[in-house]
C-alpha cells in the first residue's frame, strides 16, 4: 500500500513480565477510519501510546508518511503529524480552553510574548470548525463537564492539523447526543482526508463509522477486515476468544410487586439549581435506571444520595423508614448504601496499592480478628471475587494501576460486592469496559437484584436500560421529566422524554 | 557619680590593643533615650542577657540617666536588624546598644547612625566599623587561659579534645586562635577538633563520637556547652580528665560533684549592662577605648562556691556570671530568673 499515511510493523511492548503488545502491525490510509477493537487489557491503549510517542517500543518500527520514525516523545509525534486523544484526558484544569488547546503553539508576538486575543480567536475558529461553538474559548477547563472536556481534547488534537488522529475511547464518557456530535466531527475529518484510529467498546459506533476494523486480543492482532465483512458476532468471537452465548437474551429482572415496601424513598430532593425537587421510591429487588441527556442531574442524584455533597442538600431521603440524608459518605454507607463510581482514577481505586487491598478496603472491620487483619480470610475473599468477576491480573498483589481500564473497573465493583449493602448506586459502571466484562457486570447487577438489593443505575449507554431496568426515570433540568417501565423502556421512549419540552427528538 | 567616674571606667574598659584609639562624643545632658538592638533571642544566654538589660536600667543609679529604654529584636536576620536600626535613627535615640547579627553587615547603617550624632555601642557580637564602641570579653585571651590551664594539667603525648563552638563564628575562631597560640609550644600534645555548636546536646554527641575513636584523650578544651562534653565522658565512663568551659551552672555542678580539675571563664550576659554603661558614659562626655575588653575572671573547681558562683537549685543551662564586679555591674539572681 503505497498510500499508507501510517504504517506500524511488528510493534512489541513489555511491562516487566507482562507483554502488553506483541508483533502488531497495521497500516492506515488517508481518509480512512480504522477501528481498533479488543477486550480490556488487549493492548489498544498501549498501541496508541506507542504511536503517540508516549512510550518506547521494545521492538518494531513506525513509519509516518512513508518515512521511518523513532518517536521518543509526544512532541516528536505531533511534529510527525500524529495527534492523539488519550483514554485518560490530558488537560489542565486551571487553564482556559484556549490555553489548553493551543498549549505550546500559542499565537505569539514580536517579542515572543503570547497574544491571548489572537489565541482566543484561533481557538474559537477551531471549535466552530469541529462543530462545538457552544464551548467558550475563555472558560476554565476545570469548570467544564466531562463531555465538554472530551471535545476540548479533540479540538486540541485538531489544532495540530494532524495527518493522523488517534481517538482512544473518546465516547466512553459521552451521552447519546454528544456521541452523535462527535461522530459527525469524525466524518468531517475523514472527508478532509485525515487518517483516523478510533477506539470504542460500543459496537454501534464501530458499525456507524469504521472503514476497517482491527482486532486485538491479549496483545496480538487476531483479525483485520474491511467494514463490509465485519459482523458483531465475528468480532466478539475474535476479541473474547470463545463463542459467546447469545448476549442480551436474559430478560431484565422482574419489577417487584407494588406491595413490597420501598427500601428507599426520596422526597423533594433539592441542591441549588442542580436538583430541583426529585422524588421517587426504590423497592428491594428493583433495578431503577436514571436516564436523560448528559448533565441533567442524574449523577448529582447519586452523589447526593451517597453523601458527596457537604452542604446545600434539602429534602428527605428515607431508608427503611428512617431519615438518612447523608452529608458524608460514611453516613451513607452506614445507612446501607454502596457506590460504584465512573471516575475510577479519582474516585474509584488506589492505583498504587495492591488489588487485594483495594478490594478489602471496605470490609477491614469484618476481616479483623482482635487487632489484626485475618490475612487468610482476606485472601479467600479476594480470590473469590477475582474469579467471580474474571479480573485479568497477574496476582492479587499487583498494583491496581497496572491493570487495564476495564479490569480496574471490575476491581472497583468487587470492592463493593465484598461489602454487602442494601442499596447499590451504579454510576456508569461499564464506562470503557469491554463486552465480556460488561456481561459480567450486568450479571452481577441482576444477581444483586435477585438477592433483594435495591439498585439505582445511571448510565450514559442507553442500551443498558432495556436489558437491566424494570423502571427508568428520565431526568431533565434536575427534575424527573417522566418514567418508563417494563417493555416500554427503549431508546425512543427515553429520548422522547428527554426532549419533550423542545419537541425535537434527535436521531 | 560612679557610673561615669573616669577611674572606675578605666578599670572596666581595657583597651583591646595598645594602639586602640580613645573615642568621645559630644557631651549631651541626660537623661538619655537609649535603644537596644538585639539580634538572636531564644537561647539561655540571650534570655538572661535581655532580663539583665531590663533589670539594669531600672537600678536607681542607672535609671537616673535614662529617660527611655527600648529593646528591639530582629532574630538572626541582618536585613531586619538594619531596618530596625534605621528606624531607631528616625526616632531620635541618643544611643544605640547592639548585639549584632553579623560582624560586618551592620557597618554602614551604624556609620549612618553615628553621622546623626548617635552613640553606638556594640557588645558580645561586635561590629567592624571603627565608628562604634565595641565592648567585649577578650575571646582570644579566654581561649589562651583555658589552654594554659590544660597544658599545666595534661601529661605529655596525650590528645586534647577541642570541642569548638559554631563553625565560621568569629568568637569561635578567636577562642581557638588563642588556644592554639599556647598549644603550638607543646607539640607533644595532639589536638582533635570537633564542633559542638555551643550547645549541650551537640557537645555531648560530638564528644561521645570523639571518645569512641580517640582513646588517649588527656584533656578537654571546651567552651559554651561543655556540660555536654562532661556528660558524655561520665556517660561512657571515660577517664575523668581536666576540662575547661564557660560559666554554665551545669558544668560547675558536675565538675565540683565529680572533683574534676576544671576552669571556667565565661562570656557574661551582663556585658549588656556594661555596654549600656559605656553608652551613658560616652554621652556624658567621657572618652572610652574604641574597642574595649572587660577583665576576665577565671574560677577553678576548688574555688567554686555554691549559691555564690554556681546555683545548685537553678537549671544546668543557667549562665552563672551574671555580675561583672570590675565594672560595677551587680545583678541579683532573682532579677535574672523570674
Amino acid at each position: 500500500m503505497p498510500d499508507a499515511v501510517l504504517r506500524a510493523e511488528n510493534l512489541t511492548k513489555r511491562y516487566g513480565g507482562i507483554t502488553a503488545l506483541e508483533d502488531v502491525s497495521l497500516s492506515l490510509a488517508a481518509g480512512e477510519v480504522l477501528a481498533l477493537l479488543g477486550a480490556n487489557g488487549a493492548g489498544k491503549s498501549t498501541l496508541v501510546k506507542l504511536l503517540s510517542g508516549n512510550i518506547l517500543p521494545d521492538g518494531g518500527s513506525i513509519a509516518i508518511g512513508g518515512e521511518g520514525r523513532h518517536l521518543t516523545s509526544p512532541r516528536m509525534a505531533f511534529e510527525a503529524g500524529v495527534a492523539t486523544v488519550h483514554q485518560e484526558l490530558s488537560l489542565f484544569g486551571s487553564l482556559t480552553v484556549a490555553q489548553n488547546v493551543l498549549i505550546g503553539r500559542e499565537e505569539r508576538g514580536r517579542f515572543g510574548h503570547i497574544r491571548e486575543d489572537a489565541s482566543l480567536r484561533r481557538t474559537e475558529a477551531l471549535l466552530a470548525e469541529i462543530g462545538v461553538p457552544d464551548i467558550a474559548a475563555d472558560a476554565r477547563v476545570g469548570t467544564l463537564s466531562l463531555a465538554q472536556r472530551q471535545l476540548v481534547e479533540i479540538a486540541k488534537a485538531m489544532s495540530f492539523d494532524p495527518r493522523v488522529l488517534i481517538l482512544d475511547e473518546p465516547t466512553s464518557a459521552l451521552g447519546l447526543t454528544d456521541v452523535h456530535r462527535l461522530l459527525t466531527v469524525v466524518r468531517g475529518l475523514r472527508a478532509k482526508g485525515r487518517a483516523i484510529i478510533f477506539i470504542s467498546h460500543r459496537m454501534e459506533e464501530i458499525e456507524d463509522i469504521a472503514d476497517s476494523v482491527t482486532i486485538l486480543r491479549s496483545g496480538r492482532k487476531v483479525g483485520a477486515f474491511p467494514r463490509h465483512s465485519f459482523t458483531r458476532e465475528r468480532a466478539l468471537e475474535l476479541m473474547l476468544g470463545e463463542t459467546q452465548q447469545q448476549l442480551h437474551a436474559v430478560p431484565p429482572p422482574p419489577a417487584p410487586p407494588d406491595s413490597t415496601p420501598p427500601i428507599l424513598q426520596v422526597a423533594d430532593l433539592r441542591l441549588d439549581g442542580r436538583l430541583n425537587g426529585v422524588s421517587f421510591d426504590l423497592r428491594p429487588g428493583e433495578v431503577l435506571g436514571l436516564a436523560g441527556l448528559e448533565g441533567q442531574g442524574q449523577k448529582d442524584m447519586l452523589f447526593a444520595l451517597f453523601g458527596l455533597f457537604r452542604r446545600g442538600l434539602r429534602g428527605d431521603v428515607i431508608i427503611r423508614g428512617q431519615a438518612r440524608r447523608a452529608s458524608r459518605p460514611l453516613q451513607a454507607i452506614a445507612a446501607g448504601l454502596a457506590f460504584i463510581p465512573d471516575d475510577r482514577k479519582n474516585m474509584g481505586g488506589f492505583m498504587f496499592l495492591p488489588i487485594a487491598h483495594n478490594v478489602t478496603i471496605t470490609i477491614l472491620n469484618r476481616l479483623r480478628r482482635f487487632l489484626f487483619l485475618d490475612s487468610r480470610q482476606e485472601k479467600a475473599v479476594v480470590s473469590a471475587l477475582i474469579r467471580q468477576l474474571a479480573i485479568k491480573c497477574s496476582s492479587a498483589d499487583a498494583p491496581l494501576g497496572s491493570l487495564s481500564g476495564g479490569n480496574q473497573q471490575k476491581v472497583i465493583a468487587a470492592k463493593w460486592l465484598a461489602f454487602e449493602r442494601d442499596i447499590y448506586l451504579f454510576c456508569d459502571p461499564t464506562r470503557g469496559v469491554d463486552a465480556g466484562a460488561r456481561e459480567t457486570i450486568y450479571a452481577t447487577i441482576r444477581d444483586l437484584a435477585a438477592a433483594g438489593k435495591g439498585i439505582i443505575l445511571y448510565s450514559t449507554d442507553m442500551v443498558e436500560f432495556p436489558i437491566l431496568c424494570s423502571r427508568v426515570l428520565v431526568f431533565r433540568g434536575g427534575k424527573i421529566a417522566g418514567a418508563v417501565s417494563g417493555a416500554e423502556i427503549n431508546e425512543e421512549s427515553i429520548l422522547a422524554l428527554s426532549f419533550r419540552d423542545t419537541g425535537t427528538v434527535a436521531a | 557619680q560612679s557610673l561615669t567616674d573616669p577611674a572606675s571606667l578605666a578599670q572596666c574598659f581595657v583597651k583591646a590593643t595598645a594602639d586602640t584609639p580613645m573615642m568621645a562624643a559630644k557631651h549631651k545632658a541626660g537623661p538619655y533615650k537609649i535603644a537596644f538592638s538585639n539580634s538572636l533571642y531564644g537561647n539561655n544566654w540571650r534570655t538572661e542577657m535581655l532580663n539583665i538589660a531590663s533589670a539594669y536600667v531600672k537600678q536607681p543609679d542607672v535609671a537616673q540617666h535614662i529617660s527611655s529604654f527600648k529593646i528591639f529584636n530582629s532574630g538572626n536576620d541582618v536585613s531586619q536588624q538594619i531596618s530596625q536600626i534605621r528606624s531607631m535613627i528616625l526616632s531620635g535615640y541618643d544611643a544605640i546598644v547592639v548585639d549584632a547579627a553579623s560582624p560586618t553587615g551592620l557597618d554602614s547603617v551604624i556609620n549612618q547612625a553615628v553621622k546623626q550624632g548617635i552613640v553606638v555601642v556594640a557588645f558580645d557580637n561586635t561590629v567592624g566599623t571603627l565608628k562604634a564602641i565595641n565592648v567585649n570579653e577578650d575571646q582570644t585571651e579566654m581561649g589562651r587561659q583555658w589552654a594554659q590551664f590544660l597544658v599545666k594539667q595534661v601529661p605529655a603525648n596525650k590528645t586534647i579534645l577541642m570541642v569548638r563552638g559554631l563553625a565560621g563564628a568569629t568568637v569561635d575562631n578567636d577562642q581557638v586562635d588563642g588556644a592554639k597560640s599556647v598549644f603550638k609550644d607543646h607539640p607533644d600534645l595532639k589536638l582533635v577538633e570537633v564542633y559542638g555548636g555551643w550547645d549541650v546536646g551537640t557537645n555531648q554527641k560530638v564528644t561521645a563520637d570523639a571518645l569512641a575513636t580517640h582513646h588517649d584523650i588527656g584533656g578537654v578544651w571546651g567552651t559554651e556547652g561543655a556540660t555536654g562534653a562532661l556528660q558524655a565522658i561520665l556517660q561512657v565512663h571515660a577517664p575523668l580528665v581536666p576540662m575547661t568551659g564557660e560559666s554554665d551552672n551545669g558544668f560547675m555542678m558536675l565538675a565540683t560533684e565529680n572533683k574534676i580539675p576544671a576552669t571556667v571563664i565565661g562570656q557574661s550576659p551582663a556585658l549588656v549592662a556594661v555596654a549600656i554603661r559605656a553608652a551613658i558614659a560616652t554621652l556624658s562626655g567621657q572618652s572610652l577605648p574604641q574597642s574595649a575588653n572587660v577583665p576576665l575572671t577565671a574560677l577553678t573547681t576548688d574555688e567554686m562556691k555554691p549559691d555564690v558562683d554556681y546555683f545548685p537549685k537553678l537549671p544546668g543551662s543557667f549562665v552563672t556570671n551574671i555580675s561583672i564586679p570590675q565594672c560595677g555591674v551587680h545583678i541579683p539572681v532573682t532579677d535574672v530568673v523570674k
Partner: protein
Amino acid sequence: MSATTDLQPGRSGPRLSAAVRRGALPWLILAVVYALCVIASADFLTWHTIRLQLIQAAFIGLVAIGETLAILIGHIDLSIPWTITLTGIFATNLYAAHPHEWVAFGAAIGIGVAVGLVNMLGVYVLRVNSLIWTLSINLMLQGLTLIYTNAAAPTTVVPPAAKFLALGMVGEIPMAAVLWAVCAVIVIGALRFTPFGRAVYAIGSNELVALVSGIRLGRVYAAVFITSGVMAALVGLLLSGYSSQAYLGMGDDYLLPPVAAVVIGGSRLAGGEGGYGGSIAGAMTVILLEAMLITLNVSQGEREIVFGAILLALAFLFLGRSRR
C-alpha cells in the same frame, strides 16, 4: 500526581521489584555507609562505638515514627523541634515541682496530644498544606516556649525514668535502643497487619477514594499527628534525660533529619508507599553519616558539602524519587 504514570516512559531503573527495592535498599545503603565509616575509622567496628550511634539513632528513629506515618498519609510534620523543646522544658519543670514520674510523662503525652490535635485541625479540618502549617505551629511553639521560659527557667531535675530510658543499659544493649525496637515492632505491626495501617496507606494513595470507601479520615489523621506529637514529646523527655537538662533549642536538630531518614528509608514523600522498616535503616544512616564526617576532621564547609553530596547520591541512586 495520581495514576496516569503509565503515560510516561523512561523509568527503566534497576530491574528489581518495587517491593524488594523499597524493602532492601535502605539496608543496603546503611551497609554502604557503615562500610565507609569503618574505612574512615576502624573504631566503628567496636560495639562501644556502635552503641553510642545506636542511642543517637534511637532518638531520630523514635521521632521518625510519627514522621513516617505523616509522610505515608501524604503529609509532613515539621513541628517536631519545638515540641521536643517545649516538652523537655515544661515536663521537667513540672516534675521538679511535683516529683512523680507520671507527672512528667503525663505532661509530655499531654503536650504531644495537644500539638497533634492542632496539627490535625489545620491539616485535616482546615486543609492547609501540612508543610507550611506544621512549620507555623513550630514557630508558635517556639514562641510559647520562650514566653514560658522567661517566666520560669528550666530546671536540672530530670525524672530518673527519662534518664534511664535515654542512658540506661540492658546488659550490653542501650535502653533507648530497646525502647526503639519495641516501638518499631508496634508500628510495623500496626502498618502491616491492622485496619489502621490499611487506612494510612489508603489515605496516602488517594484521599477521596478513602473517603468514598468509608474510611474515617479524621480519626486516622488524628491518630497520625497525635502519634507524631507524642513521639516528639517523648523524645523531648529522653533528650532531657540524656543531657540531664532541658534547654532552649534542644530540638533544633530534629527538623529535617527525621524526614531524611524516612526518605532514605524508601517511603514516597507524596504518600501511600513505604513503611517504617526502611526508616529504621534511614535513621541509622543519617546518624552514621554525621558521625563519619565528624571523624574525618574536615572543615565545616567541606563537611557540609560532603554531607549534602552523599545524601543526594543516596537519594539519587536508589530511592526517594518522585513519581513525576
